């Protein structure tokens, strides 16, 4: 039921997700931040049951922090981070799978390039220019297919994301009043906007 999607632009990548936390007929909260910051220059939007969402995203981000601590501050590129994440999903798959679907975005500070990855709970992975997980894909992919092109700037990418949000809010059965949007570029991970302040707990 979560909407998670991402759009890559020239010099960065946007990850957006709704802020609903609900189960069955109940909404627990409407200000959940589902875009977990993994490292200084990467973040992943995660969809799935809250337990797996939180557990898996913390597991990955703590392991990435451990890598940096163990290796004199050396950072893993987004490509390596994505492959590591996929590897963890794959290992757990035939033991006790994580039921999470992910959009992982990052900025490689050595190659000076942004990248976006689509990962699902079966440990499939694809590098994409834009993508969406869950029901959101039925509504958003067509918009992105039409509007995305090479060499967008951040403003244009955000415009596409906002178009997608509007579409979901009009046409998607489940009410998702709040969305959180984060951008990752050479300066790191930056929250562009949110519907409700996640810190307000």
């Amino acid at each position, binding site marked *: 039921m979560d909407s998670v999607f991402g759009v890559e632009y020239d010099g960065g990548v946007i990850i957006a997700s709704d802020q609903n936390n609900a189960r069955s007929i109940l909404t627990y909260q409407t200000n959940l931040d589902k875009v977990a910051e993994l490292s200084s220059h990467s973040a992943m939007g995660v969809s799935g049951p809250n337990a797996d969402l939180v557990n898996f995203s913390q597991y990955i981000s703590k392991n990435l922090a451990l890598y940096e601590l163990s*290796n004199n501050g050396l950072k893993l*590129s987004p490509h*390596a981070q994505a*492959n590591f994440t996929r*590897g963890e999903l794959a290992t757990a798959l035939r033991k006790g799978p994580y039921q999470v679907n992910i959009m992982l975005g990052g900025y490689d500070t*050595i190659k000076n390039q942004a990248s976006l990855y689509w990962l699902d709970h079966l440990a499939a992975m694809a590098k994409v220019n834009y993508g969406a997980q869950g029901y959101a894909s039925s509504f958003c992919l067509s918009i992105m297919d039409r509007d995305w092109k090479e060499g967008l700037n951040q403003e244009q990418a955000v415009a596409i994301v906002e178009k997608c949000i509007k579409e979901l809010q009009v046409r998607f059965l489940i009410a998702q009043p709040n969305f959180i949007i984060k951008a990752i570029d050479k300066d790191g991970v930056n929250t562009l906007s949110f519907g409700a302040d996640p810190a307000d707990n």
Partner: protein
Amino acid sequence: MARRYDSSTTTFSPEGRLHQVEYAIEAINNAGTCVGILAKDGIVMASEKRVTSGLLAPSKAGSTSFLIHGSESRTSSEKTYKLCQHAACNVAGLTADANILIDQARLKAGRYEYQYCEEIPIEQLVEHVCNYKQAYTQYGGLRPFGVAFLFAGYDQHNGFQLYQSDPSGNYSGWKATVIGANNQAGKSLLKNEYGSSSAEEKEGEMKVEGVAEEIAMPDINEALRLAVKVLNKTMDATATSPEKMELFCMTLKDGACVHKIMSKEETQKVIDEVEAESSAAGDS
């Protein structure tokens, strides 16, 4: 007195020394010399071949990794081992011990790539091998590995790097270094000559003692000549020939590392260039 503390690798002597580790380091000082030199566009590793008999067949096991670029022939190697696409090492010491450690290094490099789909940063590879060596100085009661390595590699974080490691599990990064027999003589030559490029350029300048000088990194060809010069000094024989030395160099081509063992002709060419340089400078 030290005798009592000799036999066990895992016991300190009263002076605070691990004798077995020190004896292992001694064993390497009898091994064939290896020189490693960092150049601005690559790394050179030159080693002394201690092939004693003409009856020895060229090693087939070593031959697969070093394809001469563009040609069909394969060169075999006695001292240089490829660890992964972007790293290689030179061995000084007990070859049998070295084989175990080289396997460990290749495994580590492979597993890293399996997990991250990326090449392992060189220092991590070196540290892993060294940690493996260190275990034999602390647990188990097994003797340490009688091997010293020169690791040469390239990664996107720190470019070309040269590391040296010894049986204790210590390692350090170098611009140029020597291991094996007569390494002190080799190191002193490097200290004087590494970084001062062609002698002609520096003729008119005064060398001011005590002032930190800018070290100008040599290019690959200068590094090759310097390496041969070092081997000339450390090797017993007066005349050096291509059969007695192995020249390896690692460079970058189209973003990928190229590992090259020089052929007999190419080695002879470098030897000749060094010969010409020294006679031009008036050395006897």
